[in-house]
């Protein structure tokens, strides 16, 4: 394997000789492994290694980018990126100022690549056995992946940063069927490389097997508007989808109308609502020392006491909007330019209990767990893994999974109770601009939302 440190030194040399407003390079070396079960079979065991890099150039406001995984043509790649930037740019280059950083970030505490395949397989085998002993299933899926990646970043301002990250992602789904009806239930967990954190899920695995079967008999929610209570997992997805994406400045910075809509100080929710993005919390999948532009991660209040107080930036969006850079420019791999992304995004805890939230709901729906979510900025949809009818303040029958949708702005205003039980959700990943899944985490306490639209017949 070519040593990326040697290549970085060569890049540093040749970049210095170029004439452009700004140049950076990122080199990456990664190893990963995947185990995939379908039904009772361990179907996929695969290992991969990848090495590559890119050069990104800013000139007169235009970006040129060249990515590669052969290192014998660095000069050609550099001149291509420079020429591309020259062709794309015809304005002025603006980047928020940051002090150049020369650093080797502390290494992750765990490297899942050091564990044997046998050890990983034996845990997953056990989960699969438990799931199949528990309930009559049609099939099941287990998808496990882990990886360890080292990135070198350098730029024409003199930054030189080495950073490594470790990641584990596990999703387990049970599928039950009867006649032509098919239902599934699943869990999704992730860690920053600590395999021990995905042990001990036996109870959850039993539950999803039972749930998949129970869903076959569950009635469907009648579509329409309801008061809903979201559990911390789904409320976290809601925070990410409904508000998090809206606070990404790349949707805002060149759009006058969006800038008006997202003016700092504007009221988005009740005074109890606080939403934070924080890339510095140890042990969370969205955490990093430096983003992919070499800016240190930090904690940003997006909403404080109901008012818009901050947003997520790259160096360019921060400069153009004349705000502080927030260290949120991230790329999923060397094949992509960094774009504005979330890190760990959550609603801060309030003081309501679940019982207090239930009380006073004549007819509503309690939605737990997540299946997916997406947003168009104005509208969002997300789907819960399981749902229960609420009648007269009491949780009643299990419903088939529901899809919730709504207008982001009115829905945030309609959050009328926030629990005290903040939990972070580490499963899955975020997709944007063709870069998916990026490790992030999101979280929330239980929340209650008035007038939420539920799909159904």
């Amino acid at each position: 394997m070519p040593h990326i440190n040697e290549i970085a030194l060569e890049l540093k040399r040749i970049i210095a000789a170029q004439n452009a407003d700004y140049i950076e390079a990122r080199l990456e070396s990664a190893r990963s492994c995947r185990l995939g079960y379908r039904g009772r079979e361990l179907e996929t065991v695969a290992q991969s290694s990848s090495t590559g890099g890119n050069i990104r150039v800013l000139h007169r406001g235009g970006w040129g980018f060249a990515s590669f995984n052969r290192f014998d043509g660095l000069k050609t790649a550099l001149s291509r990126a420079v020429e591309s930037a020259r062709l794309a740019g015809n304005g002025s280059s603006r980047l928020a100022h940051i002090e150049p950083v020369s650093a080797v970030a502390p290494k992750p505490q765990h490297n899942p690549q050091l564990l044997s395949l046998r050890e990983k397989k034996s845990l997953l085998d056990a989960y699969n056995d438990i799931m199949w002993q528990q309930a009559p299933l049609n099939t099941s899926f287990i998808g496990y992946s882990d990886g360890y990646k080292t990135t070198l970043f350098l730029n024409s301002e003199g930054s030189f940063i080495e950073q490594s990250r470790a990641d584990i992602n596990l999703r387990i789904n049970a599928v039950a069927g009867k006649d032509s009806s098919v239902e599934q239930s699943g869990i999704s967990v992730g860690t920053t490389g600590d395999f021990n954190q995905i042990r001990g899920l036996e109870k959850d695995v039993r539950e999803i097997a039972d749930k998949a079967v129970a869903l076959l008999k569950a009635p469907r929610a009648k579509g329409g508007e309801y008061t809903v209570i979201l559990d911390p997992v789904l409320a976290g997805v809601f925070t990410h989808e409904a508000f998090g994406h809206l606070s990404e400045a790349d949707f805002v910075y060149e759009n006058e109308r969006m800038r008006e809509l997202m003016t700092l100080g504007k009221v988005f929710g009740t005074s109890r609502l606080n939403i934070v993005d924080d890339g510095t919390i140890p042990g969370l999948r969205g955490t990093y020392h430096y983003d992919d532009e070499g800016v240190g991660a930090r904690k940003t209040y997006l909403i404080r006491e109901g008012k818009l107080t901050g947003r997520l930036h790259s160096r360019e969006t921060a400069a153009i909007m004349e705000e502080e850079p927030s260290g949120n420019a991230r790329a999923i791999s060397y094949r992509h330019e960094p774009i504005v992304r979330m890190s760990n995004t959550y609603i801060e805890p309030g003081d309501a209990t679940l019982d207090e939230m239930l009380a006073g709901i004549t007819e509503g729906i309690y939605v737990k767990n997540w299946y997916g979510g997406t947003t168009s900025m104005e509208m969002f949809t997300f789907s819960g893994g399981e749902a229960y009818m609420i009648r007269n303040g009491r949780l009643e029958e299990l419903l088939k999974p529901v899809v919730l949708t709504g207008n982001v702005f009115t829905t945030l205003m309609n959050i009328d109770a926030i629990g005290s039980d903040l939990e972070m959700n580490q499963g899955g990943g975020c997709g944007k601009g063709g870069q998916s899944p990026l490790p992030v985490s999101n979280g929330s306490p239980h929340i209650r939302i008035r007038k939420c639209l539920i799909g159904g017949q």
Partner: protein
Amino acid sequence: MEHVLKLALKHAESAEVFSVVDEEIPVEFEANKLKHIQAKQSSIVALRIIKDGRIGYAVSTGSDEPEGLVAMAVETAEFGMEAKYELPYPQDYLPVQTFDPAVERISLEEMVRLGQAMVDAAVKANPEILCDAGASKHIASIGILNSNGLEAHCRSSLFSLGLGGSIIRGTDMLFVGDSHYSSHPVDDAAPVIRNVLRQLEWAGSQAKISSKTMPVIFTPHGVENALIAPLASAFSGKMVLEGASPLKNRLGQRVFDPALSIDDDATLDYQPASSPFDDEGVATRTTALIRDGVVENFYYDLYTASLAGTSSTGNGNRSGGGLPGPAVNALVVKPGTTSFEEMLADIKEGLIIEHLMGADQGNILGGEFSGNVLLGYKIENGKITGRVKNTMVHGSVYELLNGLAAIGNDARWVGGSLYTPSIYCRSIAVAAE
């Protein structure tokens, strides 16, 4: 490739080397301005081996020493699944055309011109619009070599244009967009522009809609993002084998409207998803999935076919460089004879769905979809009266596609791997605020 194969055969009884070398050059406009020009080069080498009767697999970006790749694959083979199939032998391929050298010669300046033309046309139609637009060219070479003597190579070209626009007024946001993919160069952005301008015109005002069931027309984009995922999942030989497909016992039965026929077809010349062979080297073909409403075939890769006691249909796919699994190549929905205008004229009160957000979050395995109508229009007395908002629909492809009102004669390619007309269904459940 030969070197990796030879090295692997020192450890394994069979082996296959799969390699892709590709270069993609996108030119991107952001907020009506040229912003990014990229050149992405990449290569991967994947090695599949059968060692002591088990499958091993490893993939690398190709700059590693082959010894490392072989060692990774050997390590996985200890735990890999039992090899119930043989790697394919040399076979005849249809002469499917996939490469037009003219795509390589398209200049960056020409791509910038096309992007600018799309932005200019949209801004001219509506000065409030902010566009993201782009043109991209992509050249890929795929090679497969295995120890049964199979050797296959294919070069493909892809050129694409995309235009997306947004109009924001207060908290009201409108998103429109279209794209075009071809293996030939595209020198005219007019069709993409026309489709986007039509969306802008139809969404020009807002229409009221209330919660009830009503007839619905899915435009080709609407078909793509609401109906295709549940169908693609149900026809997967793997889902059928596992009992997770609602079609598992329905082969040969009429499940859909007699007017509905859908093929999987990777053999059409110069279509982006076409190739003479799949990612395992098996010859591609035209596979009828639905013929006149009857479930005709499911699609398979080598492994799934071996478990199901049938043969691969040339649908082995390695998305993301993983082990092959069954996936659709390109779905072709047979056009009908009804014009879009005739469908409209037939509807007293109904909905047109152009973009359904979140459709992939429903119970896809069960054939259901549920989503927010991100772009859709109300029909009243045969006329489009405006865009609907805050509207959710819920349906099952098995109910919607059985008892169709009509299939359009307006078939087009959407997204490079689906050819479909508009589809007019008798009723869908609508929930509105």
